């Protein structure tokens, strides 16, 4: 499989009143077509910056971002985004909110076809019957579901998720993880998920990338073995515990803290198969 997203040696700094603030440092990352990549890292390390670069909302100081063999220089209609804040438009119904991207990107669909497409997605995430409600009438989890629908309604090649479940309670969050799997089964997108929840990262992703502290670079990659459809029970296996422990250890390194002795040694070996063996990037 070809890499759909390729980030090559990206370096970026923000101009601030106190001088340049380096945020990304020679960061390289690639995501194969159809794959799901989770990115974790200390807060403020530059994860959101990375998503804005992939979306073409910003240009990096140095390095390149490629999507589907094309260099990204500006935003493009083949990207979908969802944030921690669902940012639904209060003056539109849920259905109209989901249709919004289809009003922007070039499309041959008629209004009826656009709405049919939106309804199909809303049904898929369990929001049928809420099409004509206003966002204020929905719970946080439901709003986030609608926001996910809006992010993929125009069938983007790349779905960028910046901590979309971060503000939800634990149970709602787990519901949405399942929804995410349901969407993936139906919709062919390649995804980058920013998260600070390690369980979320191994539950949803094919590969987890740990970023170092600011300025961020890809510090560590953990492939998550593909063992068929995942259930929440899979998070409580020794393999999952080993992966979580490895990731936690890497986050501590990224935060510049030395991991407390003994936190790792008491746990089982990291991974059962060769492909799941974590590897430090060169």
């Amino acid at each position: 499989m070809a890499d759909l997203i390729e980030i090559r040696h990206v370096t970026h700094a923000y101009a601030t009143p106190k001088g340049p603030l380096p945020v990304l440092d020679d960061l390289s990352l690639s995501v194969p077509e159809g794959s799901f990549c989770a990115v974790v890292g200390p807060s403020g390390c530059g994860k959101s910056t990375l998503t804005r670069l992939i979306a073409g909302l910003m240009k990096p100081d140095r390095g390149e971002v490629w999507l589907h063999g094309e260099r990204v220089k500006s935003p493009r209609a083949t990207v979908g985004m969802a944030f921690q804040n669902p940012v639904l438009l209060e003056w539109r119904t849920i259905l109209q909110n989901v249709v919004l991207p289809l009003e922007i990107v070039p499309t041959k669909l008629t209004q009826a076809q656009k709405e049919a497409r939106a309804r199909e997605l809303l049904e898929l995430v369990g929001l049928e019957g809420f099409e004509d409600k206003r966002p204020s009438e929905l719970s946080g989890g439901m709003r986030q579901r609608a926001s996910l629908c809006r992010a993929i309604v125009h069938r983007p090649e790349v779905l960028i998720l910046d901590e979309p479940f971060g503000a939800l309670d634990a149970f709602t969050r787990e519901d949405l993880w399942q929804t995410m799997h349901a969407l993936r089964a139906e919709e062919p997108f390649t995804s980058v998920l920013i998260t600070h929840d390690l369980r979320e990262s191994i539950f949803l992703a094919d590969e987890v990338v740990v970023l170092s502290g600011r300025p961020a670079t890809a510090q560590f990659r953990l492939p998550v073995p593909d063992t068929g459809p995942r259930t929440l029970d899979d998070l409580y296996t020794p393999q999952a515990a080993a992966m979580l422990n490895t990731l936690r250890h890497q986050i501590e390194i990224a935060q510049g803290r030395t991991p407390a002795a003994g936190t790792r040694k008491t746990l089982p070996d990291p991974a059962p198969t060769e492909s799941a063996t974590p590897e430090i990037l060169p």
Partner: protein
Amino acid sequence: MIWRKVAVPLAAVLIFLALWEILVQANGWPDYKMASPSDLPPAFWKYRWLFLEYGWQTLWRTVAGLAIAVVFGLALGMVMGFSRTLRDALYPLLVGFNAVPKATVVPIIALLFVGQHDFNTVLMAFMISFFPIAVSVSIGLSTLEPEYRDILRALGASRLAIFRKIALPKTLPEFFGALKVSVTLAFIGTNLMEIVSPHGRGLGALFDSGKTSADYPLMFAVLIALAALGILLFYVVVWLERIFAGWAERPAS
């Protein structure tokens, strides 16, 4: 529902008029000291054609001034909302302009454009009422959360599309809030000019002539007519707000 909406305010008005009447009767004030509600219908009747003609003049001038204020205020608010530099540049100017008591501007304008009574009045209504609109729109636009812009910008939407689909509708509640203030202000502007201009027309001029001839019932009748016009315009704005920004209203619980 309708009953509550109409009957309750109507009852309030009637009680107010009754108290007013009682106050005047109880004190035995003659009508050159304080007119009572019962003096008003004869005054209205006596000058009915003037009321119609002048009332109409006051109304259209106010609406015209307000319309210009809306266009100008929106444009200024957009410019200041989208450009930090222009916001920093224009804000002090605007605040200074607004701080000048408008009563002092009236004679200046009246002298500048002598004889252009309609023009002067509309200009006054406009000058006094565009400020809240410009400020609210600029604040509404400049405080738009970047994520709102990004959901469309990430799709390659043009600036115009972002303005039309996100920024403008999101600013509408603030805009209408400001418009309610501006309606009243425009009304004040119109009347200031009508009262102060020699040989003016409109309800303000009618008030002035009542003053000159010490016709208290006429003066009070004008005040009532002004209040009625003010209420009318205000509720027209409320009605427009409900149509265009009704979504911002919290559903009653």
